[in-house]
């Protein structure tokens, strides 16, 4: 395994940048003795069934990087149409649309996008794909269930104690609670430079069925516009407050407590998480 010095320098640069100003809801962990041992942590975006979860995405770089994409897979179990049970991710960016200028951050942001805009047309998990197409509620509750069981730690990963680039202005305590620190449009995608057309980069679907269309059918239309207020009344992907209201028995207490006692976030989370999980499970099981 030998990457060229230029490639190592480039990785070093990117790892530093990701550490100093990570994209919203994304952190990268590496080890000193092996910088190539890279794990990304994606915070489940609010308003998606993955909210509250922290998903680890592992990277493996080949000698041909960056000419060839790194191997990349979920190490955390997730119920998602584009992720297989072994964690493989079906996304063009990691295969045919790969460009040597892409880096770790771009991949993680793309994968985060995929959590917001799942694409049933290129399903790796056909069960999830089917549900997303036919029965959004069931898809959602099942995904929430898996998230709560497999991806929701008792305490938030410490990496998230460092603020993201977009919330650098806020204090570290405020940033520690993502639901609160989020700006008014919580799902604004960070790193705009690498995401000039996020939908295209996440969508392996043919242009005749562009993703924004399918997204507007399966997800609230607000998602495809820049306004994410959840005005269509559905509470799937919305700003923190509607989510809190509509789903108050689930997410409400945790968020409120966190807001009220920001200094004690971790403790609150710890106590809130089981309740959240149970509630979600009950709801999910009712539907099953």
């Amino acid at each position, binding site marked *: *395994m*030998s990457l*060229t*010095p*230029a490639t190592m*320098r480039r990785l*070093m*640069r990117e790892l*530093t940048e990701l550490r*100093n100003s990570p994209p919203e809801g994304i952190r990268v962990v590496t080890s*000193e*003795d092996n*910088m*190539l*041992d890279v794990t990304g942590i994606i915070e489940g975006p609010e308003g998606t069934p993955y909210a509250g979860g922290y998903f680890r995405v592992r990277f493996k770089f080949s000698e*041909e990087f960056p*000419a060839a994409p790194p191997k990349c897979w*979920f190490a*955390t*179990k997730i119920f998602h149409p*584009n992720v*297989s*049970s*072994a*964690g493989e*991710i079906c996304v*063009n960016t990691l*295969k*045919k649309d*790969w460009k*040597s200028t892409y880096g770790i951050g771009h991949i993680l942001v793309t994968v985060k996008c995929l959590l917001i805009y799942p694409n*049933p*047309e*290129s*399903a*790796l998990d*056909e069960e*999830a*794909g*089917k549900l997303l*197409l036919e029965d959004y509620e069931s898809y959602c509750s*099942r995904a929430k*269930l*898996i998230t*709560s*069981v*497999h991806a*929701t*730690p*008792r305490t938030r990963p410490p990496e998230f104690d460092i603020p993201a680039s977009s919330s650098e202005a806020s204090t570290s305590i405020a940033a520690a609670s993502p639901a609160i620190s989020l700006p008014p449009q919580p799902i604004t995608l960070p790193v705009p430079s690498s995401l000039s057309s996020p939908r295209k980069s996440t969508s392996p679907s*043919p*242009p*005749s*069925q562009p993703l924004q*269309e399918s997204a507007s*059918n399966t997800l609230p239309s607000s998602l495809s516009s820049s306004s994410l207020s959840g005005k269509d009344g559905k509470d799937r992907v919305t700003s923190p407050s509607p989510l809190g209201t509509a789903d108050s028995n689930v997410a409400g207490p945790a968020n409120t407590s966190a807001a009220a006692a920001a200094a004690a976030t971790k403790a609150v989370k710890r106590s809130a998480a*089981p309740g959240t999980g*149970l509630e979600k499970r009950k709801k999910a*099981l009712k539907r*099953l």
Partner: protein
Amino acid sequence: MTDTSNLAAKMDVDEAAIDEGLYSRQLYVLGHEAMKKMAASNVLIVGLQGLGAEIAKNVCLAGVKSVTLYDPEPVTIQDLSTQYFLRESDVGQSRAEATLPRLAELNAYVPVRLLKGLTGQEISVELIQGFQAIVLCGVSYAKQLEINDWTHANGVHFIAAETRGLFGSAFTDFGPKFTCVDPTGEQPLSGIIASIDKDKDGLVTCLDETRHGLEDGDFVTFTEVQGMEELNGCKPRKVVVRGPYTFEIGDTSNLGDYTRGGIFTQVKMPKIIEFKSLRESLTSPEFFMTDFAKFDRPATLHAGFQALSRFKSQFGRLPRPRNAEDAASLVTLAKKIDADADEKTVTALAYQATGDLAPVAAVIGGFVAQEVLKACSAKFHPMVQHLYFDSLESLPSTTPTEQDCQPIGSRYDGQIAVFGKAFQDKIANHRQFLVGSGAIGCEMLKNWSMMGLATGPDAMIHVTDLDTIEKSNLNRQFLFRAKDLGKFKSEVAAAAVAEMNPALKGHILCKQEPVGQGTESVFDDAFFASIDGVTNALDNVAARLYMDQRCILYEKPLLESGTMGTKGNMQVVIPHLTESYASSQDPPEKQTLSCTVKNFPNAITHTIEWSRQEFDAMFVKPVESVNQYLSEPNYLENSLKYSGQQHDHVEQIVSYLVTNKPLTFEECIVWARLQFEEKFSNAIKQLLRSLPKDSLTSTGQPFWSGPKRAPDPLVFNSNDFTHLSFIIAAANLHAFNYGLRGETDPAIFKKVADSVIVPEFSPKSGVKIQVNENEPVAQSTSDPDDISGLVKQLPSPSSLAGYRLTPVEFEKDDDTNHHIDFITAASNLRAMNYNIPIADRHSTKQIAGKIIPAIATTTALIVGLVCLELYKIIDGKNKLEEYKNGFINLALPFFGFSEPIAAKKNKYGTTEWTLWDRFEFKNDPTLKEFIAWFKSTHNLEISMVSQGVSMLWSSFVGKKKSDERLPMKFSKLVEHVSKKPIPPHTTHLLVEIMASDEDDEDVEVPFIIVRI
């Protein structure tokens, strides 16, 4: 391959089957059709000096019905400049007779015959009856005309070729009407259609914005079109390209209404080529360009080579080396033929007329041999009609004197005539490191031995190759024979070329070490100090990149080359001048989306990739897991860390070690039968249950459309060849895992497979997690209780002490191991699921085994070009424009040369630097000294320091770590962070930094060598 004479006799018939083991890599270039036609062709080669021998070698390796040699002239010592089949002891014998036995060893399927003649007897029309292709090497134009007049009239393919010093020429005449069946050698294009207009000029639009890649004048046909069904299987329709995603196919207005679907496939149309006879062509020549930077040269050389022929008949000899008088005579003769002939070029031709260079023979010989194969097989576009080539740039910067170029009665006289004796000595003292001794390596060593490289008293060629010789190598790695199978390539190759030129005995050092970090104690500072340059003869990008880095570090020139089928390229890397190999890499092949492979295949490549993955998933990974469970303490506990997959993982171990462990081979057959049901029936049913055929997408279109083909489950039928092949291969591989003896009698498999009671398909509940529903969820992120049930089923490793399963190690070239059989059967069964046209074993093997097609002709040519650059490196040329990178494609044919790209200039402060620059520290400084030095000397603020993959220090590392590390010497620091000792042979560390200048701007700086 053991009984050579018998085999040869047996194979000398038209219906001979093709030995796929031997010809494997070449078959992927030429195909079975072309090789069958070649197997019916008798080839005559006239003139067995270096060029003739090179052509004969390549044609013999490729495989034709027979090769016949004609050259009754006696061997001279000068012939040994390039004729590697001759030895000093052959001097005086007839060239053809002396060459024949060594040539005949190359390919047991190709009988090599002697056409007898008397010394001084030229070839004549009477002698050339019964051949399909005739090659004349170094024959006078008068004779060429006589022979060509007859061949042109009698449907015999004619090629004439000649090399003079750094010049070469070739002429082809395949008759007035030659049909070429495949003018490009490219795979026919195909693509999925989105729509076809019903129109006077019917417009076809491709799906998914995928480029169709067609060109005007190409032909296509269609399958699976719905609505406009008349197009399916239609006669090839001519294409007019309208855009990258659209093309017209002529009038479609009276066809049905297009509804949906359809695939277009390119149809290769034969091309008729009208060759002129040599007589006609000499006055109105059509030139094939070898170098677009030498636009006027073909016309001059066209006159020059004819003039040489006249000179020879007039004076009874060729112009003497660097003799001004003879050169003037030649110029006069040339000007009579073409008044515009360039004087300088003709003079150079005269100077070098007695020159004979192995690299030029390799270039022209490789090229002409492919033309012979084109003539015999009609595969690939022939060269039309005159080729002239030169590499005058290879001449030394200091022109040799006439005196220096006189023959000295040595085997190097051919080279001395061009470069002079002084330069010959330079060649003899040049020391190269050849990395790889495969196809490129063999050709390289052959040329080097002819050149006399490293034959000087202190010079040495170093060769390393970890591979041993396999059967499929023998088709082009011509230094190897059947008797060498299993031996180390580097050793056999070195011995073979030392026999070609005994002066090399004791001047080649062979190793079997791969190049890489693990062998830096072998290829260390002292080693690199003892060589002048590196020549890559590698077959993988990783090793190329590694050698590139080593050459940068040690500032050694690097010659890099590679081939793929009829395509080849070569690159020169010169320290402090050109960019390096890594600077501009070809993009690797685009990968297929995992969901396409897993659920939505639409091409055979997808099903083959799936099948290759299944191979690992059935016969490798679970078996390795079982062994790890049995051998590694706490394996399960450690594997549990990978949350999300541990359940499947343990389940698999239980299945392979307990529930499905076979005790007899019969149980393996049962297992295989159930696997068939699982993979080709149940999995498809499950998918269709989730996504029924009438599913709609979110936009209301049919889900199963466009690139998504709706699958159908298979019903097992033991009478179906593919079904039974799967059972046979899978059962045998399963048995291999458990050390059970296999079977091959199909009757047994049929009987057992038909008797298996197969459980009804029951749809899987999608929610594995439900198993766990009574557990309080939040307790943990994994499901230890769930697993524990499974774990209880496992016997403890200690109860099975010493017991291990045997994982299968994928080997594509063993036809008895069932590997490719399994992959072919599984891929084809899946193709049947999805109604994709199936592929035969041969094509499946190429894709699954990622086999790079290869043929000796391309390699010979590319290596010839590499050696022409080596002359320049030996000369020490230091201007960019003096070197050349090259790209060729023999199928078109095409030559392209370009000046190497200059190393990119970077800048920090006011200092310009390239990839060749570096900082160097001696005496193992401390980190603190290191950082301070950059600050004080270059005003650079360091924010991060790394070595290899270890991050040694960064500005955000924290005060405690910083305080600990800053006083450490580098050697200590590296060991501290990497947690590994530095190997004892290490003398230096390569360090990278991130730094910013006084304006706090991030700047790129060179790499750093820290001597320890």
